[in-house]
């Protein structure tokens, strides 16, 4: 009985925590971008403008939810749900702290890679069902980008799997007790982080929604809460990638003095802020540059990292 209760508490706790982090990121991103552009950002609603989150949510919930008459209606409605579902499913494998986390999956990392691949469907279907050339172009770009960056995202993680000998994220964290994997797997970390940016299609890899050329890309035709789902999905993606970077390369909950969950939160916050810092500082590359960068630099780098890691492990025994 009590184990069921603890389980339910874990599930809903994680769900609520993750959703409120994603909502809070709207505020955090605006404030941090403002800081790096020498502005203040939203600071009127409530203390430090914290109620801006509430205002934004009320606004987006009460906006007209319009479905264009030329759209493919069932797919149009389904597409934003897919991104939320797939990203939230990925959160189930994250080990927040010992005892906190939804499932202890022995194929955790594989599950995450699968779910992030499924997330592409959301964007492609959104672009397709909108029946709009800009949306379709955005969807096409998203498909090409995410497919090519997923290849070495998987490969970059194999080094970790080889060292820790497990796909289970809890085992991976426990394997980092003596040394965080960012040191032996530095190139794996770099490649995974860049692939993570591409997976969440954040600036500088936001070509699917490139405002300057594609209106708003795949979500051009979306409004109201359907647009909000894509929006929240993007922030959930940032949170997910940050948490994964922390779990895989920066020792997850491990750390001295403070309770494990606090360490996890601090590290995650650092990487979320880094995501926003990159948005503030980097321009968007051209589409062919993006592709060339992925296939000609990142993929060989990931492969070399894999080979060297394997060689060293073989030599050490």
């Amino acid at each position, binding site marked *: 009985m009590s184990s069921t209760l603890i389980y339910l508490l874990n599930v809903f706790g994680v769900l609520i925590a993750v959703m409120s982090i994603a909502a809070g990121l709207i505020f955090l991103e605006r404030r941090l971008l403002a*800081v*790096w552009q020498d*502005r203040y950002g939203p600071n009127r609603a409530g203390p430090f403008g914290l109620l801006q989150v509430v205002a934004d949510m009320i606004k987006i919930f009460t906006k007209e939810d319009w479905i264009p008459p030329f759209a493919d209606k069932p797919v149009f409605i389904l597409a934003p749900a897919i991104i939320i579902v797939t990203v939230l499913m990925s959160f189930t494998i994250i080990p927040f702290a010992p005892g906190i986390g939804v499932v202890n999956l022995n194929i955790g990392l594989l599950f995450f890679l699968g779910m992030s691949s499924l997330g592409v469907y959301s964007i492609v279907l959104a672009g397709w069902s909108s029946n709009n050339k800009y949306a379709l172009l955005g969807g096409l770009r998203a498909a090409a980008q995410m497919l090519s960056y997923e290849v070495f995202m998987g490969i970059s993680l194999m080094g970790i799997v080889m060292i820790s000998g497990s796909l289970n994220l809890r085992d991976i964290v426990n394997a980092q007790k003596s040394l965080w994997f960012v040191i032996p797997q530095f190139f794996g970390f770099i490649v995974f982080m860049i692939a993570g940016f591409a997976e969440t299609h954040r600036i500088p890899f936001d070509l699917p929604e490139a405002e300057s050329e594609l209106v708003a890309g795949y979500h051009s035709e979306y409004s109201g809460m359907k647009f909000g789902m894509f929006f929240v999905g993007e922030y959930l993606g940032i949170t997910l990638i940050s948490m994964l970077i922390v779990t895989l390369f920066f020792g997850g909950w491990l750390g001295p003095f403070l309770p494990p969950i606090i360490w996890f939160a601090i590290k995650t916050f650092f990487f979320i802020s880094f995501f926003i*810092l*990159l948005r503030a*500082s*980097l321009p968007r590359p051209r589409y062919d540059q993006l592709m060339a960068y992925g296939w000609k630099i990142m993929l060989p780098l990931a492969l070399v990292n894999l080979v060297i890691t394997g060689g060293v492990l073989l030599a050490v025994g």
Partner: protein
Amino acid sequence: MFTSVLRSIWQVLKHTFHRRETILYPEEKPYLPPRWRGRIILSRDPDGEERCVACYLCAVACPVDCISLQATEDEHGRRYPEFFRINFSRCIFCGFCEEACPTYAIQLTPDFEMCEYERKNLVYEKEDLLINGPGKYPGFNFYRVAGLAIGGKDKGEAEREDPPVDVRSLLP
């Protein structure tokens, strides 16, 4: 390529400790230069009379037709507007009316805080526009320097004006 990326990230990060450029407006008022083009006023000459002679030049110059007025004359032959109305919901604060005005009557002021909840409240009548001063041109009195004859001032009596020459007489 990587060094330039890292460099730009570092440059942006340094902005965390820069001074904020934002002026927190309602608490902190921005500096408006004296020639700032804001709320339009009608000034008076140093004697306290209306400067406006209702020549319609401002209404003609106005690109959005927000000025409307009706000319009339008092018993001394002095022209003034019977009504003078500026619709500030149309006004674009271009300052053309000020440039067109031959008597420095209409002037733009450094003030922009004129929001209203109802559109009709943005229509300013002459009483709302007139101020009790000469505005940017303290000493200027149009009828004092103009050659026009009005009641109490005949031709040739204006400042730095010679008496009129009788062109039909040969005497010097």
